[in-house]
Protein backbone atom coordinates (compact mmCIF):
# COMPACT_ATOMS: atom_id res chain seq x y z
CA UNK A 1 0.00 0.00 0.00
CA UNK A 2 2.85 2.37 0.87
CA UNK A 3 4.45 1.77 -2.52
CA UNK A 4 1.20 2.50 -4.26
CA UNK A 5 0.75 5.75 -2.35
CA UNK A 6 4.34 6.74 -3.21
CA UNK A 7 3.77 6.01 -6.90
CA UNK A 8 0.65 8.14 -7.08
CA UNK A 9 2.36 10.92 -5.17
CA UNK A 10 5.27 10.83 -7.67
CA UNK A 11 2.89 11.01 -10.62
CA UNK A 12 1.17 13.95 -8.98
CA UNK A 13 4.52 15.79 -8.51
CA UNK A 14 5.57 15.21 -12.14
CA UNK A 15 2.18 16.28 -13.37
CA UNK A 16 2.24 19.55 -11.47
CA UNK A 17 5.91 20.28 -12.27
CA UNK A 18 5.23 20.07 -16.02
CA UNK A 19 3.31 23.31 -15.82
CA UNK A 20 6.59 25.24 -15.39
CA UNK A 21 7.69 24.15 -18.89
CA UNK A 22 4.59 25.43 -20.58
CA UNK A 23 6.01 28.81 -21.69
CA UNK A 24 4.97 29.23 -25.28
CA UNK A 25 7.33 30.63 -27.88
CA UNK A 26 7.78 30.90 -31.60
CA UNK A 27 10.88 31.63 -33.62
CA UNK A 28 11.67 32.89 -37.10
CA UNK A 29 14.97 33.18 -38.91
CA UNK A 30 16.46 35.31 -41.63
CA UNK A 31 19.76 35.03 -43.39
CA UNK A 32 21.92 37.97 -44.32
CA UNK A 33 24.92 37.79 -46.63
CA UNK A 34 27.53 40.48 -47.05
CA UNK A 35 29.90 40.54 -50.00
CA UNK A 36 32.84 42.88 -49.43
CA UNK A 37 34.51 43.08 -52.82
CA UNK A 38 38.12 44.10 -53.14
CA UNK A 39 38.29 47.47 -54.91
CA UNK A 40 41.36 49.35 -56.10
CA UNK A 41 40.76 52.60 -57.97
CA UNK A 42 43.61 54.70 -59.32
CA UNK A 43 42.52 57.99 -60.85
CA UNK A 44 44.68 60.49 -62.71
CA UNK A 45 43.04 63.86 -62.27
CA UNK A 46 45.38 65.73 -64.59
CA UNK A 47 46.00 65.59 -68.32
CA UNK A 48 47.76 62.30 -69.05
CA UNK A 49 50.19 64.02 -71.42
CA UNK A 50 52.95 66.20 -70.00
CA UNK A 51 54.83 68.26 -72.60
CA UNK A 52 58.35 69.59 -72.32
CA UNK A 53 59.34 71.96 -75.12
CA UNK A 54 62.97 73.17 -75.16
CA UNK A 55 63.19 76.18 -77.42
CA UNK A 56 65.60 78.54 -75.64
CA UNK A 57 69.16 78.24 -74.45
CA UNK A 58 67.95 79.08 -70.97
CA UNK A 59 65.59 76.13 -70.99
CA UNK A 60 68.35 73.80 -72.16
CA UNK A 61 70.70 75.03 -69.46
CA UNK A 62 68.32 75.25 -66.50
CA UNK A 63 65.95 72.51 -67.55
CA UNK A 64 62.19 72.59 -67.24
CA UNK A 65 60.41 71.48 -64.09
CA UNK A 66 56.69 70.72 -64.13
CA UNK A 67 55.43 70.83 -60.57
CA UNK A 68 52.24 68.83 -60.00
CA UNK A 69 52.58 67.54 -63.54
CA UNK A 70 50.52 64.51 -62.60
CA UNK A 71 48.03 64.09 -59.79
CA UNK A 72 46.93 60.66 -58.69
CA UNK A 73 44.18 59.61 -56.31
CA UNK A 74 43.80 56.20 -54.73
CA UNK A 75 40.58 54.68 -53.41
CA UNK A 76 41.09 51.21 -52.01
CA UNK A 77 39.33 48.68 -49.83
CA UNK A 78 42.50 46.62 -49.47
CA UNK A 79 46.01 47.33 -48.25
CA UNK A 80 47.86 48.57 -51.32
CA UNK A 81 51.16 49.47 -52.96
CA UNK A 82 51.81 51.97 -55.74
CA UNK A 83 54.84 51.78 -57.98
CA UNK A 84 56.08 53.51 -61.11
CA UNK A 85 58.22 52.55 -64.09
CA UNK A 86 58.80 53.50 -67.70
CA UNK A 87 57.17 51.21 -70.22
CA UNK A 88 60.39 51.04 -72.27
CA UNK A 89 64.11 51.43 -71.72
CA UNK A 90 64.30 54.58 -73.82
CA UNK A 91 62.30 57.41 -75.31
CA UNK A 92 60.72 56.79 -78.68
CA UNK A 93 61.82 59.24 -81.34
CA UNK A 94 58.92 60.45 -83.46
CA UNK A 95 60.87 62.90 -85.58
CA UNK A 96 64.49 64.08 -85.85
CA UNK A 97 65.29 67.74 -86.44
CA UNK A 98 69.00 67.31 -87.19
CA UNK A 99 71.41 64.75 -88.58
CA UNK A 100 73.84 64.71 -85.68
CA UNK A 101 73.49 63.62 -82.08
CA UNK A 102 72.32 60.45 -80.38
CA UNK A 103 68.69 59.40 -80.92
CA UNK A 104 68.88 57.03 -77.96
CA UNK A 105 67.52 58.77 -74.86
CA UNK A 106 67.33 56.42 -71.88
CA UNK A 107 64.13 56.61 -69.83
CA UNK A 108 66.31 57.74 -66.92
CA UNK A 109 66.71 61.28 -68.33
CA UNK A 110 63.27 62.00 -66.88
CA UNK A 111 63.43 62.91 -63.20
CA UNK A 112 60.37 62.58 -61.00
CA UNK A 113 59.47 63.10 -57.35
CA UNK A 114 56.40 62.36 -55.29
CA UNK A 115 54.67 64.53 -52.69
CA UNK A 116 54.04 61.47 -50.48
CA UNK A 117 56.99 60.01 -48.62
CA UNK A 118 57.64 56.33 -49.27
CA UNK A 119 59.50 54.03 -46.90
CA UNK A 120 60.55 51.72 -49.71
CA UNK A 121 64.31 51.39 -50.22
CA UNK A 122 63.92 52.47 -53.86
CA UNK A 123 61.64 55.47 -54.06
CA UNK A 124 61.08 58.88 -55.61
CA UNK A 125 60.89 60.96 -52.45
CA UNK A 126 63.12 63.56 -54.17
CA UNK A 127 63.96 64.16 -57.83
CA UNK A 128 65.29 60.84 -59.11
CA UNK A 129 65.76 59.29 -62.52
CA UNK A 130 62.71 57.27 -63.53
CA UNK A 131 63.86 53.70 -64.03
CA UNK A 132 63.44 52.21 -67.49
CA UNK A 133 61.59 48.95 -67.95
CA UNK A 134 64.66 46.72 -67.58
CA UNK A 135 66.17 48.65 -64.68
CA UNK A 136 62.83 48.77 -62.87
CA UNK A 137 62.88 44.94 -62.89
CA UNK A 138 59.14 44.95 -63.46
CA UNK A 139 58.25 41.79 -65.35
CA UNK A 140 54.72 41.26 -66.68
CA UNK A 141 53.53 44.03 -64.39
CA UNK A 142 54.98 42.44 -61.26
CA UNK A 143 57.51 44.56 -59.32
CA UNK A 144 60.48 43.55 -57.20
CA UNK A 145 62.36 45.13 -54.32
CA UNK A 146 64.34 47.11 -56.93
CA UNK A 147 61.22 48.84 -58.28
CA UNK A 148 60.47 52.46 -57.43
CA UNK A 149 57.57 52.53 -55.00
CA UNK A 150 55.50 55.63 -54.29
CA UNK A 151 53.59 53.84 -51.52
CA UNK A 152 54.26 50.63 -49.65
CA UNK A 153 57.04 48.35 -50.75
CA UNK A 154 57.72 44.89 -52.09
CA UNK A 155 56.58 42.22 -49.62
CA UNK A 156 53.38 41.90 -47.62
CA UNK A 157 52.93 43.46 -44.22
CA UNK A 158 52.89 40.01 -42.64
CA UNK A 159 56.08 39.19 -44.53
CA UNK A 160 57.95 42.20 -43.21
CA UNK A 161 57.05 44.61 -45.99
CA UNK A 162 54.79 47.62 -45.78
CA UNK A 163 51.63 48.87 -47.43
CA UNK A 164 49.28 51.80 -47.29
CA UNK A 165 45.99 51.34 -45.50
CA UNK A 166 42.63 51.08 -47.24
CA UNK A 167 40.66 54.30 -47.58
CA UNK A 168 39.66 57.01 -49.97
CA UNK A 169 41.52 59.99 -51.35
CA UNK A 170 38.79 62.30 -50.11
CA UNK A 171 39.20 61.11 -46.52
CA UNK A 172 43.00 60.66 -46.59
CA UNK A 173 44.47 63.45 -48.73
CA UNK A 174 47.95 63.23 -47.22
CA UNK A 175 48.44 59.56 -48.04
CA UNK A 176 46.02 58.78 -50.87
CA UNK A 177 46.64 61.83 -53.09
CA UNK A 178 49.91 62.07 -54.98
CA UNK A 179 51.38 65.08 -56.73
CA UNK A 180 54.14 64.05 -59.11
CA UNK A 181 56.71 66.63 -60.16
CA UNK A 182 58.72 66.04 -63.34
CA UNK A 183 61.97 67.53 -64.55
CA UNK A 184 64.09 67.34 -67.70
CA UNK A 185 67.47 69.04 -67.72
CA UNK A 186 69.30 68.57 -71.03
CA UNK A 187 72.15 71.10 -70.47
CA UNK A 188 74.34 72.20 -73.37
CA UNK A 189 75.27 70.03 -75.09
CA UNK A 190 72.19 67.94 -74.30
CA UNK A 191 73.86 65.18 -72.32
CA UNK A 192 71.30 65.07 -69.53
CA UNK A 193 73.88 65.01 -66.73
CA UNK A 194 71.39 64.03 -64.01
CA UNK A 195 70.50 60.79 -65.77
CA UNK A 196 71.74 57.62 -64.11
CA UNK A 197 72.14 56.00 -67.55
CA UNK A 198 74.37 57.54 -70.19
CA UNK A 199 73.16 58.26 -73.71
CA UNK A 200 76.01 56.11 -74.97
CA UNK A 201 74.63 53.04 -73.19
CA UNK A 202 73.29 51.52 -76.39
CA UNK A 203 76.66 51.68 -78.14
CA UNK A 204 76.23 55.00 -79.93
CA UNK A 205 79.25 57.07 -78.95
CA UNK A 206 77.61 60.41 -79.48
CA UNK A 207 77.15 61.77 -75.97
CA UNK A 208 74.50 64.40 -76.67
CA UNK A 209 70.93 64.06 -77.78
CA UNK A 210 69.73 64.54 -81.31
CA UNK A 211 67.29 67.40 -81.68
CA UNK A 212 63.87 65.93 -82.26
CA UNK A 213 60.45 65.02 -80.94
CA UNK A 214 60.35 62.16 -78.40
CA UNK A 215 57.85 60.53 -76.12
CA UNK A 216 57.99 58.17 -73.13
CA UNK A 217 55.19 56.25 -71.46
CA UNK A 218 55.19 56.33 -67.66
CA UNK A 219 53.24 53.59 -65.89
CA UNK A 220 51.71 54.03 -62.43
CA UNK A 221 50.55 50.72 -61.05
CA UNK A 222 48.26 50.27 -58.05
CA UNK A 223 48.26 46.75 -56.65
CA UNK A 224 47.10 44.88 -53.57
CA UNK A 225 49.83 44.60 -50.97
CA UNK A 226 52.49 42.39 -52.53
Amino acid at each position, binding site marked *: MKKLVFLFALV*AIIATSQKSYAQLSDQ*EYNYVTMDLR*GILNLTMTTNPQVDFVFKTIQEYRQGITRFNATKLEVDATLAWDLFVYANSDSWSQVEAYSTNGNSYLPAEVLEIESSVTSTAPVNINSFTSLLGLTNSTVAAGVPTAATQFLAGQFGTISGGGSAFAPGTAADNPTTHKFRIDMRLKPSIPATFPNSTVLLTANGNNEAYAQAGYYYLEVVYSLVEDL
Partner: protein
Amino acid sequence: MKYFFLTILISLNIFLFSMIGTSKVSAQTVEFGITSLSSTISFDFNTIENYRTGIIKYNAFELLVDVTGSQWDLYVGATTTSTGYLDVTSTYSTSGVLPPVSILQMQVRNANNTSLVSGFSPITDIATPTYLIGSAAAPDLSVSCPNNGTNTAGNYLSSPGCYKFNVDLKINPGFTYKSGLYSLRIDYILIQDL
Protein backbone atom coordinates in the same frame (compact mmCIF):
# COMPACT_ATOMS: atom_id res chain seq x y z
CA MET B 1 -10.20 2.62 4.87
CA LYS B 2 -7.54 1.44 2.41
CA TYR B 3 -9.97 1.64 -0.51
CA PHE B 4 -11.13 5.06 0.54
CA PHE B 5 -7.54 6.37 0.55
CA LEU B 6 -6.86 4.76 -2.82
CA THR B 7 -10.00 6.22 -4.32
CA ILE B 8 -8.96 9.71 -3.16
CA LEU B 9 -5.51 9.36 -4.74
CA ILE B 10 -6.87 8.08 -8.04
CA SER B 11 -9.37 10.92 -8.16
CA LEU B 12 -6.59 13.44 -7.47
CA ASN B 13 -4.43 12.08 -10.29
CA ILE B 14 -7.31 12.05 -12.75
CA PHE B 15 -7.93 15.67 -11.82
CA LEU B 16 -4.24 16.62 -12.32
CA PHE B 17 -4.02 14.87 -15.69
CA SER B 18 -7.21 16.54 -16.79
CA MET B 19 -5.62 19.89 -15.84
CA ILE B 20 -2.63 19.14 -18.07
CA GLY B 21 -4.92 18.22 -20.88
CA THR B 22 -6.90 21.40 -20.63
CA SER B 23 -3.74 23.56 -20.52
CA LYS B 24 -2.91 22.42 -24.01
CA VAL B 25 -6.21 23.53 -25.35
CA SER B 26 -6.29 26.73 -23.33
CA ALA B 27 -6.64 30.04 -25.19
CA GLN B 28 -2.98 31.02 -24.84
CA THR B 29 -0.99 31.03 -28.07
CA VAL B 30 1.93 32.96 -29.42
CA GLU B 31 2.30 32.85 -33.17
CA PHE B 32 4.81 34.54 -35.26
CA GLY B 33 4.95 35.11 -38.96
CA ILE B 34 7.63 36.65 -41.11
CA THR B 35 7.42 37.77 -44.67
CA SER B 36 9.98 39.12 -47.07
CA LEU B 37 10.70 39.06 -50.75
CA SER B 38 13.46 36.61 -49.97
CA SER B 39 14.54 34.69 -46.89
CA THR B 40 18.06 35.92 -47.60
CA ILE B 41 19.03 39.56 -47.85
CA SER B 42 22.28 40.28 -49.67
CA PHE B 43 24.53 43.27 -49.22
CA ASP B 44 26.94 43.63 -52.15
CA PHE B 45 29.67 46.19 -51.68
CA ASN B 46 31.16 46.66 -55.12
CA THR B 47 31.83 50.38 -55.27
CA ILE B 48 33.83 52.77 -53.14
CA GLU B 49 30.64 54.78 -52.62
CA ASN B 50 28.95 51.70 -51.11
CA TYR B 51 31.84 51.31 -48.70
CA ARG B 52 31.77 54.99 -47.73
CA THR B 53 28.07 55.56 -47.26
CA GLY B 54 26.91 52.02 -46.53
CA ILE B 55 23.86 50.21 -47.84
CA ILE B 56 20.38 50.36 -46.28
CA LYS B 57 17.70 47.80 -47.09
CA TYR B 58 14.39 49.28 -46.06
CA ASN B 59 11.54 46.85 -45.31
CA ALA B 60 13.89 43.92 -45.64
CA PHE B 61 11.53 41.82 -43.56
CA GLU B 62 8.08 42.06 -42.04
CA LEU B 63 7.27 40.49 -38.67
CA LEU B 64 3.67 39.52 -37.99
CA VAL B 65 2.72 38.90 -34.37
CA ASP B 66 -0.40 37.06 -33.25
CA VAL B 67 -0.72 36.44 -29.51
CA THR B 68 -3.77 35.23 -27.66
CA GLY B 69 -4.36 35.33 -23.93
CA SER B 70 -0.90 36.24 -22.75
CA GLN B 71 1.67 38.96 -22.47
CA TRP B 72 4.71 38.49 -24.68
CA ASP B 73 8.34 39.43 -25.26
CA LEU B 74 10.08 39.83 -28.58
CA TYR B 75 13.84 39.73 -28.85
CA VAL B 76 16.37 39.39 -31.61
CA GLY B 77 19.98 38.28 -31.98
CA ALA B 78 22.48 36.85 -34.40
CA THR B 79 23.58 33.24 -34.61
CA THR B 80 27.00 32.50 -36.05
CA THR B 81 29.56 29.75 -35.72
CA SER B 82 32.12 32.00 -34.07
CA THR B 83 30.30 34.02 -31.44
CA GLY B 84 30.30 37.71 -32.24
CA TYR B 85 31.71 37.38 -35.75
CA LEU B 86 30.14 36.78 -39.12
CA ASP B 87 30.49 33.37 -40.73
CA VAL B 88 33.16 33.40 -43.43
CA THR B 89 32.26 31.84 -46.76
CA SER B 90 35.45 33.01 -48.46
CA THR B 91 37.94 35.85 -48.26
CA TYR B 92 39.48 37.79 -51.12
CA SER B 93 42.52 39.34 -49.46
CA THR B 94 45.04 38.90 -46.72
CA SER B 95 44.73 42.34 -45.18
CA GLY B 96 42.03 43.55 -42.83
CA VAL B 97 40.15 42.02 -39.92
CA LEU B 98 37.06 39.83 -39.79
CA PRO B 99 33.82 41.78 -39.37
CA PRO B 100 31.85 41.47 -36.10
CA VAL B 101 28.09 40.88 -36.11
CA SER B 102 27.64 44.44 -34.84
CA ILE B 103 28.50 45.61 -38.35
CA LEU B 104 24.86 44.82 -39.15
CA GLN B 105 22.48 47.45 -37.83
CA MET B 106 18.76 46.91 -37.47
CA GLN B 107 15.76 49.17 -37.14
CA VAL B 108 12.43 47.61 -36.17
CA ARG B 109 9.45 49.91 -36.48
CA ASN B 110 5.70 49.98 -36.79
CA ALA B 111 3.04 52.63 -37.12
CA ASN B 112 2.74 53.23 -33.37
CA ASN B 113 6.46 52.96 -32.61
CA THR B 114 5.88 50.25 -30.04
CA SER B 115 9.41 48.86 -30.32
CA LEU B 116 11.52 49.71 -27.28
CA VAL B 117 14.55 50.20 -29.52
CA SER B 118 14.23 53.17 -31.83
CA GLY B 119 16.45 53.92 -34.78
CA PHE B 120 19.25 51.76 -36.11
CA SER B 121 21.23 49.81 -33.54
CA PRO B 122 23.93 47.14 -33.94
CA ILE B 123 22.72 43.57 -33.75
CA THR B 124 24.09 41.45 -30.90
CA ASP B 125 24.75 37.77 -30.48
CA ILE B 126 21.66 35.74 -29.57
CA ALA B 127 23.33 34.92 -26.23
CA THR B 128 22.89 38.59 -25.30
CA PRO B 129 19.81 39.47 -27.32
CA THR B 130 18.18 42.82 -27.89
CA TYR B 131 14.66 43.05 -26.50
CA LEU B 132 12.33 44.86 -28.87
CA ILE B 133 9.31 44.21 -26.62
CA GLY B 134 9.49 43.38 -22.94
CA SER B 135 12.64 42.42 -21.08
CA ALA B 136 14.54 39.48 -19.69
CA ALA B 137 12.81 40.07 -16.36
CA ALA B 138 9.36 38.55 -16.10
CA PRO B 139 6.64 39.38 -15.94
CA ASP B 140 6.86 42.93 -17.32
CA LEU B 141 4.28 45.57 -16.65
CA SER B 142 1.34 45.26 -18.95
CA VAL B 143 1.39 47.80 -21.80
CA SER B 144 -1.55 48.04 -24.12
CA CYS B 145 -1.68 49.09 -27.73
CA PRO B 146 -0.86 51.73 -28.97
CA ASN B 147 1.70 52.57 -26.28
CA ASN B 148 5.45 52.13 -26.57
CA GLY B 149 6.33 48.60 -25.52
CA THR B 150 2.90 47.08 -26.23
CA ASN B 151 3.04 43.53 -24.88
CA THR B 152 -0.58 42.56 -24.39
CA ALA B 153 -2.41 40.00 -26.50
CA GLY B 154 -3.37 41.08 -29.99
CA ASN B 155 -2.70 40.38 -33.60
CA TYR B 156 -1.41 42.06 -36.72
CA LEU B 157 -4.73 41.76 -38.55
CA SER B 158 -6.79 43.76 -36.09
CA SER B 159 -3.99 46.08 -34.86
CA PRO B 160 -1.24 46.27 -37.47
CA GLY B 161 0.06 49.47 -35.90
CA CYS B 162 1.20 47.50 -32.85
CA TYR B 163 1.68 43.92 -34.02
CA LYS B 164 3.20 44.28 -37.47
CA PHE B 165 6.85 45.28 -37.58
CA ASN B 166 8.97 46.35 -40.51
CA VAL B 167 12.67 45.55 -40.30
CA ASP B 168 15.26 47.79 -41.95
CA LEU B 169 18.87 46.65 -42.17
CA LYS B 170 21.98 48.73 -42.65
CA ILE B 171 25.67 47.94 -43.08
CA ASN B 172 28.30 50.64 -43.20
CA PRO B 173 31.56 48.69 -43.40
CA GLY B 174 34.18 51.39 -43.83
CA PHE B 175 37.62 50.22 -44.88
CA THR B 176 38.98 48.14 -42.03
CA TYR B 177 37.48 44.73 -42.79
CA LYS B 178 38.89 41.95 -44.88
CA SER B 179 37.33 41.58 -48.32
CA GLY B 180 35.22 38.46 -48.56
CA LEU B 181 31.82 36.84 -48.55
CA TYR B 182 30.18 36.61 -45.13
CA SER B 183 26.84 35.55 -43.68
CA LEU B 184 24.85 35.40 -40.46
CA ARG B 185 21.46 34.24 -39.27
CA ILE B 186 19.07 36.60 -37.50
CA ASP B 187 16.87 34.94 -34.89
CA TYR B 188 13.58 36.55 -33.91
CA ILE B 189 12.11 35.04 -30.76
CA LEU B 190 8.52 35.63 -29.69
CA ILE B 191 7.91 34.23 -26.22
CA GLN B 192 5.23 34.23 -23.59
CA ASP B 193 6.07 36.68 -20.81
CA LEU B 194 5.88 34.50 -17.72
